[in-house]
């Protein structure tokens, strides 16, 4: 009985299905549960291998280390749901982080810095979105260009050197965003939770979210149904850019400085989280919850491999293998349906 009957688990998960409003609810729930099961299994195995793993302290470390990738991956989920891809998030993170550090250093007040940085991220994303929707350039190419150009812009802006955010009037308050705790929980983790809830609400409860799924499901159908598909596309890239900027703020705050090479290859981790979470690169199918689980799987794995003293060379191999495994399990589930 290896081929799971689609009916029996579906019945067992109606309660969850009712909460999850996505298209193809049952299937998606299954996929999300599968990656959740994977996460739990992974954690069980590691807790046997290392006594240091299942401690509150270590779990909080994992959450904090996962937060940046998770925040970026939430934005990536929007883009991938429209059958797009955003390769520029790492570069946006670097550029916005540098601008943020410079503004803090120039003694601007914290709220202004944060708003300006987030707005910059959204704007940069929106430009990619415009290139995709109005310019009709493939998302891969458009954001590859953005990735290259913005990395260059970051190097120009920083003159290739780190920008210190440790001075300035707001520096102390700023540091808390990356390194502080609230009720014993790292602030980045709380931020991740808040962003997750907002994104979940937008995707599953709002009209906009439906349109995101519709555009990815079939752009042609969406257009004929009266949806302004161009606007939706610009919006998802803007969201992705905005969240990349938020990740940039968190990283810069934590390190107290912005590195010109920050965020390099972060886009791949984010895409991996989305895919491991069961979202289809073809668009139209996937869940934000899956992405959260996907990001956690990658985070737990990184943490465990460190705990187990695996060399960083082997870590990359292991990570690749786990991503492949997750995707195989997921596509197997779809095939039997």
């Amino acid at each position: 009985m290896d081929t799971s009957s689609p009916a029996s688990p579906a019945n067992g998960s109606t309660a969850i299905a009712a909460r999850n409003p996505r298209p193809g609810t049952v299937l998606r729930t299954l996929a999300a549960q599968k990656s959740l099961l994977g996460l739990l299994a992974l954690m069980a195995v590691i807790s046997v291998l290392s006594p240091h793993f299942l401690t509150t302290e270590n779990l909080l470390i994992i959450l904090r280390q996962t937060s940046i990738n998770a925040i970026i991956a939430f934005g990536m989920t929007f883009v991938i749901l429209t059958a797009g891809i955003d390769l520029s998030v790492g570069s946006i993170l670097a550029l916005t982080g540098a601008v943020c550090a410079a503004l803090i250093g120039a003694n601007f007040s914290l709220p202004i810095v944060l708003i300006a940085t987030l707005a910059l991220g959204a704007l940069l994303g929106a430009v990619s979105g415009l290139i995709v929707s109005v310019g009709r350039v493939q998302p891969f190419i458009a954001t590859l260009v953005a990735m290259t150009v913005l990395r260059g812009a970051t190097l120009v802006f920083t003159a290739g050197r780190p920008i210190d955010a440790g001075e300035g009037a707001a520096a102390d308050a700023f540091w808390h965003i990356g390194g502080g705790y609230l009720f014993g929980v790292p602030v980045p983790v709380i931020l991740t939770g808040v962003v997750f809830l907002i994104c979940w609400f937008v995707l599953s409860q709002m009209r906009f979210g439906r349109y995101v799924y519709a555009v990815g499901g079939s752009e042609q159908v969406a257009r004929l149904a009266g949806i302004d598909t161009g606007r939706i596309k610009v919006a998802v890239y803007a969201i992705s850019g905005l969240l990349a900027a938020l990740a940039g703020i968190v990283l810069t705050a934590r390190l107290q400085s912005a590195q010109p090479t920050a965020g390099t290859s972060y886009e791949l981790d984010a895409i991996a989280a989305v895919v491991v979470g069961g979202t289809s690169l073809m668009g139209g199918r996937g869940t934000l919850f899956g992405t959260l689980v996907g990001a956690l799987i990658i985070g737990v794995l990184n943490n465990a491999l460190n705990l187990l003293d695996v060399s960083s060379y082997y870590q990359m191999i292991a990570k690749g293998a786990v991503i492949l495994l997750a995707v195989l399990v997921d596509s197997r589930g779809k095939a039997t349906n």
Partner: protein
Amino acid sequence: MTKVLLELRNISKTFGDVRVLDRVGLRARAGRVLGLVGENGAGKSTLMKIVSGIHRPDPGGEILLDGAPVAIASPRRAMDLGIGIIHQELNLLPGLSVAENIFLGREPRRTSGRIDWRAMRDAAAELLRSLKQDHIDPRLLVGRLGVGAQQMVEIARTLSQRAEVIIMDEPTDALTDVETKILFDVIRHLKSDGKAIIYISHRLGEIFAECDDVAVLRDGRLVHEGLVADLTEGQLIHQMVGRAITDQYPYEAQPAGPVRLEVRNLVAPGVAGVSFTAHAGEVVGFAGLMGAGRTELARAIYGANRLRSGSVLVDGKACRLRRPRDGVRAGIAYVTEDRKSDGLIQPHAIRTNMALSALPALSPGGMVRRAGERAVVADYMRRFAVKAPDMEAEVRTLSGGNQQKVSLAKSLLTQPKVVILDEPTRGVDVGARREIYTLINEMKARGMCILLISSDMPELLGMSDRILVLSRGRVTGAFARDQASQHAIMERAVA
């Protein structure tokens, strides 16, 4: 009786809890055409997918080929066994040539391993000649052929696999009358060659004209098997739906209301200056041959194709139509002829598909009111008699007729004033057809104005209050209901 080439015994298929096929048996004989009929959702396609190796039957069933039991584990295996299927949707690669498509994956090779292009072209030409299709150049890209010619390429491909059993799933749906005639010639030719042909069609006229045997599926069961000659059309319909359909076109006369839609001098891609008015509670039929500009006219009125000049007025108000969104807002709904690629998001749920166009109304302030959405969708599913496990079922799992109902419901949910139905019953069986006609009457009664585009002449004559004939992008004829006849319409359509 000739030899039985393919025999199915006791074939059942269950998806989840749903039993789609229930102990079906079937025999296809050499040199005979077996018509397979049934309502949408009766299980025809599933049965054929089992025969062609896409689905596996439940344990207990048997497939015999030439009297020997076989297991058909994959489409490739079906091909090797000599079972060819021509799908409803053509499975050709438009960017490859005719010859490449015919021999895809089985290209003749030289000893060096390189493809022998000349041999391939010659073999393709030979196949096409055997189908009397010499005019199709094997070197042409398939994407440049018409649908009819593409169908011939599909058949040639099937023949090149030395298929003895050939399944055709609604092959004439996309064909013009001339192309259909050619197809029938080909079928007769295949018959005389001793092939067994399974012919699936909703067009009962074709079943009576072209088939020798007929098998009727209803709700996953075989309810009748026998000679076509032993049945009347009425009996066959009765077998299919399990009830007698007395009147195929339940037209209801109704006094026309005020002018709802006014189209003035419309010029758009494929439309060369069209003017007409349509009233509330009126069905205006659009007749015309393929390429006459009917779909183009519909798309222009809806805002999907750009207007070059002219205007469209709904309830006397001029509409700015640049995008489909403008059409939706102006109260115009368009039910597309191609529900697969334009109408519905196949992998999404019935609920989200149905609600898609009407989402602004269902989500005040941007938030989707889930309870309201469910209630509306449930209501439409009941009224339209959509056959599905529930509203979360993926649209692609539904039969053609049920998909069409979802597509229709999606458009009506926007509370339109003008509804354009483009080939609403294409690929839809008798029972669901009848339900769609009833819905048209309901829309009429609610004061909507309906533009009915159809290539099915009896349907057009049966349901329209008025018929406009289009030819080369212009209106070439207009008939009141009682003056219209097939002959008169055809005369204007070729004008």
